[in-house]
């Protein structure tokens, strides 16, 4: 599917990314690489809009997690499916979730290893735990595509590897901004390198070599 075709992306009239063309085929897993400020988040936001405009179901893991700190982990996960139900149904879920919803949300929490924390308010969790709650919310939501902005930045490397595997199993198509090249190699089918608002390269993961990585991150 052709998602972006020759558009300038940015905020407040300042173009961060210029003349972007991007198509994502179903089944592809994209990794966005680049230093902070290179335009990864801008590209993800534009992809989000483009995907929504095509009426596809998308699960989002934003960089700042966007959880409700006062609610417990279980309810934050349950938020993943609120737009599937009526206001009345959601009100009931807020007061006391139905058995099936509860089990489904606990299943998502189980995948990220947070079942013991299900009843705790998110404000009391660590940074890595919050990130896993946000991931569990996306898993609970499910959909055609997952969009993640550094979704594994606060968890330790071994956990990150396991979580990347879970994401791969749960979503047919994925676009993740990643900071860890090794994880990107293991996870993605295709990598996009961004530097200073320009797409430096867009190639199959097998073609990613040391010179390209140096060009991306070097001085």
């Amino acid at each position: 599917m052709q998602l972006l075709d020759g558009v300038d992306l940015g905020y407040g009239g300042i173009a961060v990314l210029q003349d972007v063309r991007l198509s994502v085929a179903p089944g592809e897993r994209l990794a966005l690489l680049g230093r902070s400020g290179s335009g990864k988040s801008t590209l993800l936001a534009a992809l989000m809009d483009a995907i929504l405009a095509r009426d596809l179901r998308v699960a989002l893991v934003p960089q700042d997690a966007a959880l409700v700190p006062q609610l417990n982990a279980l309810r934050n996960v349950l938020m993943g499916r609120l737009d599937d139900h009526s206001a009345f149904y959601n009100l009931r879920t807020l007061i006391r979730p139905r058995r099936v919803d509860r089990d489904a949300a606990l299943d998502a929490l189980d995948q990220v290893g947070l079942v013991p924390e299900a009843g705790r308010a998110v404000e009391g969790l660590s940074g890595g735990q919050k990130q896993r709650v946000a991931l569990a919310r996306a898993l609970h939501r499910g959909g055609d595509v997952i969009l993640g902005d550094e979704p594994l930045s606060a968890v330790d490397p071994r956990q990150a590897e396991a979580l990347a595997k879970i994401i791969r199993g749960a979503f047919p198509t994925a676009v993740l901004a990643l900071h860890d090249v090794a994880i990107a190699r293991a996870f993605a089918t295709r990598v996009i390198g961004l530097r200073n608002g320009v797409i430096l390269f867009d190639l199959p993961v097998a073609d990613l070599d040391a010179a390209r990585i140096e060009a991306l991150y070097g001085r």
Partner: protein
Amino acid sequence: MGASMSRLGVVGVFLAAALLCLPLADMTVASHDPWAALARMGRGFLTPDFSALEQISRAVAQTLAFAIAGVALGGMAGLCLAPFYRLRAVRGLAIGLRSVHELFWALMLLQVFGISVWSGVLAIALPYAGIFAKVLSEIMDEADPRPAAWLGPRADPLTRFLWTRMPLARPQMVNYALYRLECGLRSSAVLGFIGLPTLGFQLDSFFRQGEYGAAGAVMAIYIALIATVRLWMRPRLVILWLGAAALMLATVQAPPMGQGALWRFLSDIVPAPLRQGDPAGVVPWLWHLLDGAILPGLMATLVVAQLALILAGAVAFLGQALIVPRVAGRAGAAAGHLLLVILRSFPEYMLAYLFLQVFGPSMLPAILALGLHNGAIIGHLLGRQAAALTLRPDAPRGLTLWGWEIVPRLFGSFLALCLYRWEIIIRESAIMGILGIATLGFYLDSAIGELRIDRAVAILAATGLVTIGVDALSRAIRARLGAASLRMSGSRQAVRARQATGC
């Protein structure tokens, strides 16, 4: 934003205006021996007499009941209005509700319901609903928008509200509701002065009987009640308190009103010439009203308010470091705290009532009460800011610190807070008329006394317009001073700004 008005220039203009007001102010001491009266009162307060326990505790319970019921009703109504505050009709309704003071609401409601529970509860609930609607909508706007955005475009508004906005804003909302309950306790007590069975009524009757010791006991209990709000009002106990308040209010015995009081009130609102089928008579009616009530009342209101503002400014300017231990010493700071708490706890109206007993009827009691109460509020807010300043380790102490560090650093805040309180001082000056000082409230009260409700409503509208005008003027001056930034981001700043404009 750069400042386009000089701060000292603004202070100069306000001082000059106060000097012009001075010859117009009636500041005579009307009682023949104020010092003896003051001594009697002081003795009463220092030796409170709790023997009239039954009467006092009944008045305390009624004060609590009216406050809790009024704030709860106003809070619920405000919460229902808050999500729709962006709609012009809702905003207009809220502004209208809160532009009329509780006491004025009560005076009008008494015409409809008589001395009944509804007069007192609605007098608090109606203006508070308007205030709650505004503040709760602000609190919800300040809440983190990202979780709501995450839900995507398909989630319905109620779900978005209950799952994201509501839990995020809840701590601030509870905090604000508690603060409003403190305000409600003040309002409820003051309603006693116009006949409802709360502390003000009890205080008034003790004073009339010369029982200063019993009056002192009422004051002591009142201060304790307000100072401990956050201890006895817990979110878990709300239902219990509400039930107790309802039970207490059910025991209030109201004299029955005649049939059709509401209808009579509504038809009385219409200007008399219109009611008598003489539309041409409206202009002379209005002119008579302007000339005989609104303009003199307005003049007196502005004079009282101007002098009170200067007094409040002076109290706050000198007292801003009173609660900072580095300036006043540890014991001095504790004493300063106590003084400011006492002056803040008493509503202006009650302070004015006390001063009236001492000095007799003139503008003096009103000016003193408004100046001391508002000065204490500004001083307290500035003191908290001063205590939070990060000073270098070798910073001076005492008066040198006050003059060289605190005053210059906080001068912008000081001016902004004074300008915020200006509008409130105007509102309260109008209210003071009910005590017999010739401000707008006096003319309103006498219009109601003569059962000329049409005139009362017109005076009420004039009072509202003046308040709105002063509010706009104060905002314009703050913007030109670059002092509007008190309303900065950060929840602590926002809380402070709300208290600056609160009770």
